[in-house]
C-alpha cells in the first residue's frame, strides 16, 4: 500500500511537446483518483510517466515515499491496464493473468493457482483456457484487470479503462471497478476524458489542461465549484451557462437581468456568470427569454431560452413541465449555485 507524490514533474517529448508541465500532485493511499481532461491535455502522458513508460524530463515521482523517477517500470511496484487491454493473443486467459508471475519465474503450479484464484474474484473462472480473441469486450477488460491485480502491487494505473466498452456494459463495468477497488483497497489512478465517468468513480478528480492541473478536488467540489471557466465548461453532462455580465453596484447585469451578487467590485467591471442548467428554476424573475428548443433527456428536459440580447441560456425542467416552444419564460438560479468568474476566468465568488 502506498500513496503517490508527484513534485514539479515535466515530461517533454523529443519533438518538443511539453505534455506534462511542472505538475504537483498527491494521491492518497487507497484512493481512487481520476485524471480528467480533453484529448491532448497530457493526462495519459502523466499516467505513463508514473508507470515509467515515459521518462520524466524534470521533477520527481515518489511511490510509497520511495523516489522511483529513474526506476524501470517493472521496479516501481505499479501495475497497469492499457486502453486496448494489451492482452497477449497467443496466451490463454490463465497464462495472461499469471504473466507477472511468469516474469518472476514462479513455478507453473503457483502460476495456475494464482490465475484460478484471481479469475474467480473477477467471474472469469470458466474462461481460463480461452484465448483473448474468443472473449467479449467486458471479459477482455476483466482479464486485463485480473492480470493487473494478480500480483499484489501497491498502485494500479488504468488508461481509459471503460472507453472500449459499449454504453450499456460501461455502466456495469463502472460499478464493478469501483467495488473491486474498494475490496482490494488499492491506490488507483485512472485516466478518462469522460467527465461523468470521473465524477461517478473517483474519490478525487484532477481536471487537466495543457499539461497542468486546473482543479483538484472531490467530484462534488469540482461539479459545484469549478475553479475556473475551463473546468466549468468541461464538467457536467449538460454544458454550463457561462454568460458575460457587468457589475452594477451590488448586482450584476447579465442578459438583460440584474442578479444579486456578492462581488465588491467597481461599477462596470466585466465578469462571467456561470449557472448549471440543473440549478435554474422557472420563476417570476431572473433571465427572461423565449423558449427556442426543448430537448428530451428522459426524466428531465433541457430547455434553451433565447434572451432579448440573443444570449442562449439552458435550464433543466422536470418531465411534464416542458414549456411550449415560443413561450415566454423566466428562470432564476437556485440560491448559492451561481458562480462569478473574473475576466481571467478564475472563480471570484458564489451566490
Amino acid at each position: 500500500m502506498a500513496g503517490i507524490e508527484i513534485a514539479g514533474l515535466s515530461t517533454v517529448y523529443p519533438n518538443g511537446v511539453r505534455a506534462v508541465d511542472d505538475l504537483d500532485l498527491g494521491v492518497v493511499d487507497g484512493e481512487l483518483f481520476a485524471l480528467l481532461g480533453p484529448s491532448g491535455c497530457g493526462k495519459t502522458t502523466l499516467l505513463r510517466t508514473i508507470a515509467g513508460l515515459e521518462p520524466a524530463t524534470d521533477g520527481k515521482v515518489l511511490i510509497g515515499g520511495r523516489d522511483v523517477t529513474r526506476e524501470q517500470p517493472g521496479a516501481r511496484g505499479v501495475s497497469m491496464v492499457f486502453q486496448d487491454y494489451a492482452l497477449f493473443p497467443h496466451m490463454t486467459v490463465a497464462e495472461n493473468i499469471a504473466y507477472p508471475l511468469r516474469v518472476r519465474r514462479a513455478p507453473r503450479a503457483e502460476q495456475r493457482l494464482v490465475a484460478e484464484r484471481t479469475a474467480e474474484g473477477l467471474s472469469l473462472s470458466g474462461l481460463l483456457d480461452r484465448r483473448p480473441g474468443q472473449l467479449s469486450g467486458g471479459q477482455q477488460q476483466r482479464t486485463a484487470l485480473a492480470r493487473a491485480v494478480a500480483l499484489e502491487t501497491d498502485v494500479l494505473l488504468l488508461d481509459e479503462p471503460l472507453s472500449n466498452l459499449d454504453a450499456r456494459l460501461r455502466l456495469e463495468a463502472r460499478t464493478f471497478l469501483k467495488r473491486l477497488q474498494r475490496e482490494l483497497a488499492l491506490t488507483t489512478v485512472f485516466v478518462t476524458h469522460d467527465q461523468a465517468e470521473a465524477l461517478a468513480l473517483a474519490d478525487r478528480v484532477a481536471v487537466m489542461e495543457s499539461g497542468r492541473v486546473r482543479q483538484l478536488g472531490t467530484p462534488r467540489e469540482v461539479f459545484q465549484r469549478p475553479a475556473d471557466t475551463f473546468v466549468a465548461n468541461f464538467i457536467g453532462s449538460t454544458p454550463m451557462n457561462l454568460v458575460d455580465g457587468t457589475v452594477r453596484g451590488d448586482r450584476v447585469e447579465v442578459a438583460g437581468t440584474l442578479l444579486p451578487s456578492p462581488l465588491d467590485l467597481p461599477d462596470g467591471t466585466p465578469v462571467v456568470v456561470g449557472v448549471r442548467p440543473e440549478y435554474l428554476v422557472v420563476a417570476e424573475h431572473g433571465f427572461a427569454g423565449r423558449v427556442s428548443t426543448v430537448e428530451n433527456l428522459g426524466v428531465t428536459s433541457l430547455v434553451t431560452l433565447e434572451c432579448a440580447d440573443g444570449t442562449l441560456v439552458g435550464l433543466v425542467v422536470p418531465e411534464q413541465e416542458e414549456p411550449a416552444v415560443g413561450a415566454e419564460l423566466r428562470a432564476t438560479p437556485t440560491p448559492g449555485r451561481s458562480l462569478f468568474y473574473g475576466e481571467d476566468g478564475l472563480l471570484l465568488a458564489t451566490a
Partner: protein
Amino acid sequence: MTPAWVVRRIGFCTLIGVVLAFFAVPMLWLASAPFDADPGLGLRWPDWTLANVATTLRHPHALTSLVNSLVLCVVATVVTTVFAALAAYSLSRVRIPGRDALLYLLLLLSSVVTGTAAMVPIFVMVLQLGLIDSRFGTALVIAGGMLPAAIFILKDFVDSVPRSYEESARVFGASPRQVLGHVVLPVARPGVATILVWSFVNAWGNFLLPFLLLRDVGKQPAAVLLRTLQDEGGSANLSVIPVFSLLYSIPVVVLYLFVSTRYGFRFHGGIKS
C-alpha cells in the same frame, strides 16, 4: 455457339493445356524417372525398379552432399533468423534518424552482396580469413547475403505488434529479452516462420557461393554436386540424377509442411483484428 466462339474456346483450352504441360512435365519426370529401369530425359511410363535408388546410395558423394546441404542450410537459417529477429526488433522500436534510408540501403546492397558482382571480393576475403573449404564459413557468407532482406521482411511483422503489448510486459517487470521472447516473437510468429522457410529454401538452392568457396568435393552441398554427377563417359549420369533430384527436393517440402502445420502461417488475433 458461333464458330468464332468455338475457335476461341479451343484456342483458350489449348493455351491452358500447353502452360499446364510446361509446368507438369518436370514434376512428372521427377516422379517417374527415379523408378525407371532405363531413365532418359524424356517422359514415359516407367519400367518400375528400385535399382537406381541403390546405385544412388552407393555413390561416394551423394549422401554426404545432402548432409553438407543440411549443415549449410541449418547454420545459415539459424543465423539469419536469430540475427534478423534481433535486428528487426531494434530497428522497429528504436528511434534513430535515417532509419528508413538505412533499411532501403541494406535491401539494395543485399542484391549486390549475394549477386555475382561481389563474388571476387568475397572470395578474396574468405580466402584471407582461411575459410575456404569451411562449411561454417560458407554458411555465414550465405546468411550474410540473406540477412538484409530477412530483416526487411521481419521488420514489417514486428511493426505490426502493438507497442502496448510490450509496455504491458515491461510494467509487469519483464526484461527486454523476456519482452522479445514472451511477447514480440510469439506474436510475430507468422513472420518468423516465413523467414525460416524462406532462408532455408534460399540456402538450399544456393549454387554459386558453395561452388566458389567449397573446393573439396566431400564438403560440397547437393546443389553443387548435382552438376558433377557424370558417368565414366562424361555425360549426365541418368541412373543417379533422378533419384538424387528427388532426395534433394524432399527436405524443402517437409520443412514447408512442418512449419505450416506446426507453427502455422496464421494469427490468433487480438482485439479488433
